[in-house]
């Protein structure tokens, strides 16, 4: 029943939007690819965009497709070849894809897609078990500097944002990043279990993964990889503690290659409008995602900077052969 009322409501809204803005109507159809299996972060982003697009009446029909595999390498290959020149398609991607394409030696690169906008970002949190002798970032940095191999880090997949952040931490602490003892766990709660069980020195992941454990006093937050203290996090940033490390796990949308400047402009404007809608803002809040909206040339530059930076870090830890 709820679905029916929702559908009616949606239909009414769309109709209203259509009559109000027939001249300025940007798109009627849009396909969003999530280059991952249903349920993950990229899929949730794509489906939330779908929901906000249709409910706000910005786009009438939005279809989400999933192409899972290899950190998005499979999805982007299909997107670049199959959607070329189509101004009605978008693909969700994120920082993880930057690293995955490099470590997988993907024949397709991000230079081929048309950058549209960065939409969300989450900063990384470094934690230790509550009974750890390490109290703050300075002490952790000192331990890493003394012997990087003895400090074990638990985090997500090799070459992912957690791994890169750990390598950058070692570098900022004045240690050799190639020597870090980073132990990748396959997603979910495995890394968290290893940290809670005191099997590793420190853990690194998005703040959301640790939040309830930090609040319950089972984990100690050492620092955030944000530029300064975050309003919703009860703890300092690494920068505030003198560790020069800033990294965010961001998500963005890109368009296929081969679009005309006008087409790119229209698509960017549509996404710009989405970011301002009440529906989208509500979804961000519900999901606990930080708004990090950035579009147009600024995002294009950001994307290429991140690629260069990531390549450098991954080469320095030996994951990418230069």
């Amino acid at each position, binding site marked *: 029943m*709820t*679905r029916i009322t*929702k559908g009616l409501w949606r239909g009414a809204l769309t109709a209203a939007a259509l009559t109000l803005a027939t001249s300025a109507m940007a798109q009627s159809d849009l396909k969003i690819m999530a280059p991952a*299996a*249903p*349920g993950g972060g990229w*899929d*949730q982003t794509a*489906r*939330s965009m*779908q*929901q906000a697009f249709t409910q706000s009446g910005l786009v009438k029909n939005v279809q989400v497709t999933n192409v*899972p*595999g*290899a950190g998005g*390498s*499979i999805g982007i*290959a299909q997107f670049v070849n199959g959607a070329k020149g189509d101004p009605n398609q978008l693909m969700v991607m994120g920082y993880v894809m930057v690293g995955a394409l490099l*470590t*997988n*030696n*993907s024949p397709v690169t991000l230079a081929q897609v048309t950058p549209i906008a960065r939409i969300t970002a989450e900063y990384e949190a470094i934690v230790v078990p509550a009974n750890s002798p390490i109290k703050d970032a300075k002490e952790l940095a000192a331990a890493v500097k003394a012997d990087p*191999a*003895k400090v*074990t880090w638990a985090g997500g*997949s*090799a*070459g992912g944002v957690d*791994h890169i952040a750990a390598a950058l931490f070692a570098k900022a602490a004045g240690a050799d990043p190639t020597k870090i*003892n980073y*132990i*990748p*766990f*396959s*997603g*979910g*709660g*495995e890394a*968290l*279990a*290893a940290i*809670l*069980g005191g*099997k*590793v020195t420190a853990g690194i992941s998005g703040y*959301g993964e640790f*939040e*309830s*454990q930090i*609040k*319950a006093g*089972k984990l100690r937050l050492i620092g955030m990889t944000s530029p300064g203290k975050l309003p919703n996090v009860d703890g300092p940033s690494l920068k505030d503690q003198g560790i020069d490390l800033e990294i965010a796990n961001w998500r963005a949308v890109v368009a296929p290659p081969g679009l005309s400047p006008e087409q790119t402009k229209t698509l960017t404007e549509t996404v710009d409008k989405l970011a301002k809608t009440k529906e989208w803002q509500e979804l961000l809040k*519900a*999901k*606990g995602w930080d708004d990090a909206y950035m579009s147009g040339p600024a995002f294009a530059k950001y994307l290429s900077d991140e690629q260069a930076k990531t390549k450098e870090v991954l080469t320095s830890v030996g*994951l990418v052969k230069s």
Partner: protein
Amino acid sequence: MDAFVSLAHGLTVAIQPMNLLFALIGVLLGTAVGVLPGIGPALTVALLLPITFKLDPGGSIIMFAGIYYGGMYGGSTTSILINTPGESASMVTALEGNKMAKAGRGGPALATAAIGSFVAGVIATAGLAFLAPYLVDVAVQFGPEDYFALMCVAFVTVSATFGDSPVRGLTSLFIGLLLGLVGIDILTGQARMSFGVPDLLDGVEVTTLAVGLFAVGEALYVASRRHLVEEKLEPVRGSLWMTKEDWKRSWKPWLRGTAFGFPIGALPAGGAEIPTFLSYSTEKRLAKHPEEFGHGAIEGVAGPEAANNASAAGTLVPLLTLGLPTSATAAMMLAGFQQYGLNPGPLLFAERPELVWGLIASLFIANVMLLVLNLPLVGLWVRLLAIPQPWLYAGILVFATMGTIAANPSVVELMMLTLFGIMGFLMRRFDFPIAPVVVGLILGPVAEGQLRRALSISLNDPMVLLQSPISATLLVIALIALILPFVLKGMSRFKATED
């Protein structure tokens, strides 16, 4: 006791008509997707998330749990009737269950699976209600070295018990281990044996392998022998219902299966498959008629089915108490909690008791619903076997292909399904057991990853495997299990009755 009061309170939440309805929708959906190979409960919950966004949190979480339990029930049906495991945790059920179905005992096989799942589900849910806080403290103490030792136990028992000869069992296991190497190495992020095919970077999909080996392989095998022997399948021989003898042979495996499933399911990296392997091996070893194994022993259905359902309840222990999702479905349920701004974890029991206890209480109700739903269907399901063989197997092929494409729409996946089908046919033809291949694929990468993690943490000191008491104990068990069959084999050589 505190937990009793909370549970009683939870029951009042769960029997609200709306929540009962959600539980019913959940178990129906779960059973349906459990029956389809490839589409698992995780995918279903993922697709439902956006729809449930506006619903009441309690109701939709109850529905998700219903899907989870329903999936575990439904997976056994196709395993037993058409030798097509709906998901990897019901693969073991196919071994004996399908043999029983072919001998006209599909009814009792389905019944023991349903009742065993019920018994295990109820006991394990009670375990969840009363033991969760204690169990979870033990579970996080399980380190990589302990998991590696647990895998060793599984490897040894599995290779020794599946199939007639250990050498053939080991050969199959190694094929599986080899397949497990394909894809990105989790610890270094480097691709191995993917031959430049991007689709292989994530490794071989377990359901594709299981469906290929079991269903497609079987269809090819039956087709190849059709001109030789006209195999007549009798849908029902004897009673449709379990006999007194069946009950007698089932109840102990149910309890033992639960004892394997619940604690291993509660381990953050335990999973639903290992307890089914261990249960099968145990039942084979303890059975009064071990020679019946491989020809339709009811213990081999009762134990593993109880084990996989108990592990589903076990998975909820770390999810609710720590916010640790330890299976794909649990990860989706976590996303479900989070979309309502709820963070499962140590504080959830204190902050939202009505939600947690309502969920636990509705798990009991979901179990009852599943039993009521499944038992009357037994008679209907076994009619499937009355379909003429060419039709039935053609149907199985369509069904298997559809499930694989639904889960992973790619040409490479279909080619793999075909290849595994041919492999399954050849292995049947030359009498190699097929289950150890799947076991190798599931356990190989996990065992490798855990061993390397353990060594990384200990700075390459192998003694870490013996220093942990859990790991040392498990390794000793593995060693005993390795030697024992050879001793027993020597003793029983004279009374061997293999054909």
